[in-house]
């Protein structure tokens, strides 16, 4: 009941729910919510049957782009994404990874050119046997999903 109230409290916008507690601020960071002027509610360490502790982010008047959805899919693949219009969930959007991650993730190879010069990182997303790997377009090294570090901006 309490959860529903929180979701309904948003008139128009996007709710990202069921975020693992430790991933909430990573998502805040990749969506650049710190500098967005939108009305924002961030909850964390809420009780969750599924996750134990979860986080939730509500953003008013903003529909996420495919690229942004893809970034969330990378960090919290099991989160849920709801689009709210006039206090109602009008769409539950699947978190689908795109084919390329552009300038989000830091390459794990210290000898990669992207770690030495001001170059946007680009990774090919490889999904095989239920796992996700990222292959650097430049140095061709691969990183596993749980080794992913975000690029500092």
């Amino acid at each position: 009941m309490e959860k529903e109230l929180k979701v309904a409290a948003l008139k128009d916008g996007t709710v990202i729910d069921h975020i693992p507690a430790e991933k909430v601020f990573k998502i805040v960071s990749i969506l650049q919510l710190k500098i967005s002027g939108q009305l924002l509610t961030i909850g964390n360490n809420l009780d969750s049957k599924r996750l134990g502790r979860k986080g939730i982010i509500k953003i008013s008047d903003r529909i996420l782009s495919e690229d942004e959805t893809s970034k969330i899919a990378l960090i919290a693949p099991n989160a849920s994404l709801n689009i709210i219009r006039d206090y109602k969930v009008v769409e539950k959007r699947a978190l689908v990874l795109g084919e390329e991650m552009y300038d989000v993730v830091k390459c794990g190879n210290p000898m990669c050119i992207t770690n030495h010069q001001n170059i946007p990182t680009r990774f090919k997303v490889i999904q095989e046997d239920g796992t996700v790997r990222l292959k650097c377009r430049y140095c061709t090294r691969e990183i596993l999903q749980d080794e992913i570090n975000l690029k500092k901006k």
Partner: protein
Amino acid sequence: MVNSLVSITDYSKEDILDILESAKAFEAKPDRSLLKGKVVASLFFEPSTRTRLSFETAVVRLGGEVIGFSDAATSSSTKGESLNDTIHMVGCYADAIVMRHPLEGAARYAAEISPVPVVNAGDGANQHPSQTLLDLYSILKTQKTLENLTICIVGDLKYGRTVHSLIEAMSHFKPTFRFISPDELRIPEEYKIFCKKNNIPFTEHTELNNNFDDADILYMTRVQKERFQDLMEYERVKNVYVLHNDMIQNTKPNLRILHPLPRVNEISMDVDQNEKAYYFQQAQNGLYVRQAILSKVLNCKIND
């Protein structure tokens, strides 16, 4: 995207065969004026005498001119110029860029931003496609075919970029691989998966002796001390992967021994006189293959 060559995987089987065919024509007649009036920039951010001289000779023998530097210390990168700016600047002067850089991925990035074709002459431990193409040319020349060969690769199979590229390039030609290395330097899992996906049979061994008696190619690489975490382990294996003349007595008559060079002690000097030793001719083939690469990226066709 212009006609760059960054990784051997940029080339299809047809592209590879095309290069090998023109390399043959250049071997028959290396001096041609195909690149007359062309300027090739040779940007070596890291010294590499063998590769640089081979590329520069290839340009000169084709009638072109070379500009560039042989060491980052004599380039503007010491003043803090970014690779982006250096490539844009050089792209204003030259018709093609040959680049060696210590950082991995530098060549792919340069090729993306360059207005003229970029040929990767080595980007750190990443790619070195001209080496792979000259390996293939050497295999073709000595075996008269690339198809259905048994290739035995020895040494550092974990970090050796020439090994990884050779596997990818040979995958078009139905090879059988035998990988021989110390445990610490075994072939990475991703290349084994690659072989399986492409139906390429392979076996793994830790002993050098007798494992190549039915091979057509014995590809030796250097086991580098700096790759070992445990120096005791290095001391233990360093002499296990040394090829001596008496070890190749029972090999097939068509076997040829290749090595990307420089060698340290992994092939003993007494092998050099054996007709199966091919590593010095292999290095010479590099000239013809690089002539073929430069002609291809600059769209200059041989007319005879």
